[in-house]
């Protein structure tokens, strides 16, 4: 029983970072109607920016986090301006392919600089185990989990309670109507991509510290899983995407523990196919396009 709880906790920790990346992905998709394949590469860029900052500047986690997330924000805005905006009215598949090109560019660009192997990311957070009965949680896990939860809460507040968050939802549902009521759709797109990238950047640093490594192709798996989370949850409620992200982490942890670690990455897709076969709009509904 305690074993099970331990696995669930570990899974939720990992799942919270899936949730952060997936929410950014879903926000971008809902508002811009674009699959930003390069979104997880922004996450990867933040990892490496964090690594550079740690090696060259400071070990202070908060400063590393802010600098890396800002770098991610800048990268996200650049992608929006250079690739997404010129393709705003194009067929859904085209921005997808173009951002895939950006993805390839960034993956190999970072590989060219950092080399093809995983790099060690220094443990810049305390690693103190906290034990409750037979369950162990490290302070490292708790801090990264706490950051993820804070980001998710802030994002939910933005979408539910702020003027621009409301505008983003209006654009997601009916971009033309929102525009005629004075909403600058390009500005909303920019804010959305910027916010998503910033969140992904913060999650990237969190994951790098948690696993103690950075790798130029880490985005592939994260991208896929965020995509799965979004489609399983439906993109109508970002809280649903968060929930599915955390559930997915737990499910994977349980699969690794009780079935086989080689099935871990397949779990997401089995869930996906089953859910979408039954509910093509996802569990909690999607905007209809």
């Amino acid at each position: 029983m305690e074993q099970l709880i331990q696995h669930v906790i570990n899974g939720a920790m990992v799942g919270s970072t899936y949730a952060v990346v997936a929410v950014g992905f879903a926000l971008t998709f809902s508002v811009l109607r674009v699959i930003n394949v390069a979104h997880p590469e922004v996450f990867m860029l933040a990892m490496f920016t964090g690594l550079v900052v740690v090696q060259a500047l400071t070990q202070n986690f908060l400063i590393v986090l802010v600098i890396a997330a800002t770098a991610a924000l800048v990268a996200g805005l650049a992608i929006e301006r250079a690739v997404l905006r010129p393709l705003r009215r194009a067929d859904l598949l085209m921005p997808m392919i173009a951002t895939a090109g950006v993805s390839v560019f960034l993956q190999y660009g970072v590989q060219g600089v950092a080399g093809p192997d995983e790099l060690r990311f220094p443990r810049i957070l305390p690693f103190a185990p906290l034990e409750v009965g037979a369950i162990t949680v490290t302070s490292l896990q708790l801090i990264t989990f706490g950051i993820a939860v804070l980001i998710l809460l802030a994002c939910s507040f933005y979408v539910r309670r702020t003027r621009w968050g409301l505008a983003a939802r209006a654009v997601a549902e009916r971009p033309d109507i929102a525009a005629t009521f004075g909403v600058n759709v390009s500005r909303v797109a920019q804010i959305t991509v910027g916010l998503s990238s910033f969140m992904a950047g913060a999650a990237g640093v969190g994951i790098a510290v948690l696993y103690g490594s950075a790798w130029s192709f880490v985005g592939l798996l994260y991208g896929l899983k965020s995509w799965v989370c979004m489609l399983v949850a439906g993109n109508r409620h970002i809280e649903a995407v968060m929930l599915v992200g955390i559930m997915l982490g737990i499910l994977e942890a349980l699969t690794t523990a009780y079935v086989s670690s080689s099935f871990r990455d397949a779990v997401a897709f089995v869930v996906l196919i089953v859910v979408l076969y039954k509910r093509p709009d996802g569990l909690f509904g999607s905007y209809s396009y």
Partner: protein
Amino acid sequence: MSALLEVAGLEVAYGAVRAVKGVDLVLHAGEIRVILGANGAGKTSILKAIFGLVKPRAGRIAFQGQELRGLEPHEVGSRGVAWVPEGRQIWATLTVRQNLVMGAFVNNKRAAVERRMAELFDRFPILAERRSQLAGSLSGGEQQMLAIARALMAEPKLLLMDEPSLGLAPLIIRRVFDLVREINASGISILMVEQNARQSLRVANWAYLLENGAIAGSGSPAALASTEEIRRVYLGG
């Protein structure tokens, strides 16, 4: 009297299909004018062109003497033009209140928005009652009221209405057209696009007939209602 809105030589095309062919129309401040035409005559394209939602191929669109062509939709929206789109198109996933807040997006002053909303809740009690409901859960008639109230939140000088009677029950249609008259009486000019000639001629000062993207005729409602053509095509008698 100076023209509030003046459209001249407007051409809209989708690929090789010309939807609007050299349309001229004028609207003076304080008027209600209606563009009558069948489905696919190009009515909606004219409204979309005014908003910059489609880019016209040629022509001038002057609002208060200023050219609107080349502006982005949100720039047109913040100059005092609001619209009630075809088929309502309210934000179904937002609440009634949030729909109204979005209607006043151009107005950044919270107090003014609240005051305006209170006024509209007085005029539309049903919306006040449902203010926290998701707009998608309203009936068709209620959604039309919301679409109109949303446009009024922007405190526009000019209101564009795209087929406000579409898909509504006869009783509600009467109510909508009475409302059009009330809105106009409060000082808002209205350009309306309609298929329902009987009701729209009842409220309009002037009507244009649009056929295959071109103006086929225009006149005062009284003059038009007496012509054989109108009676046969639009009034069913």
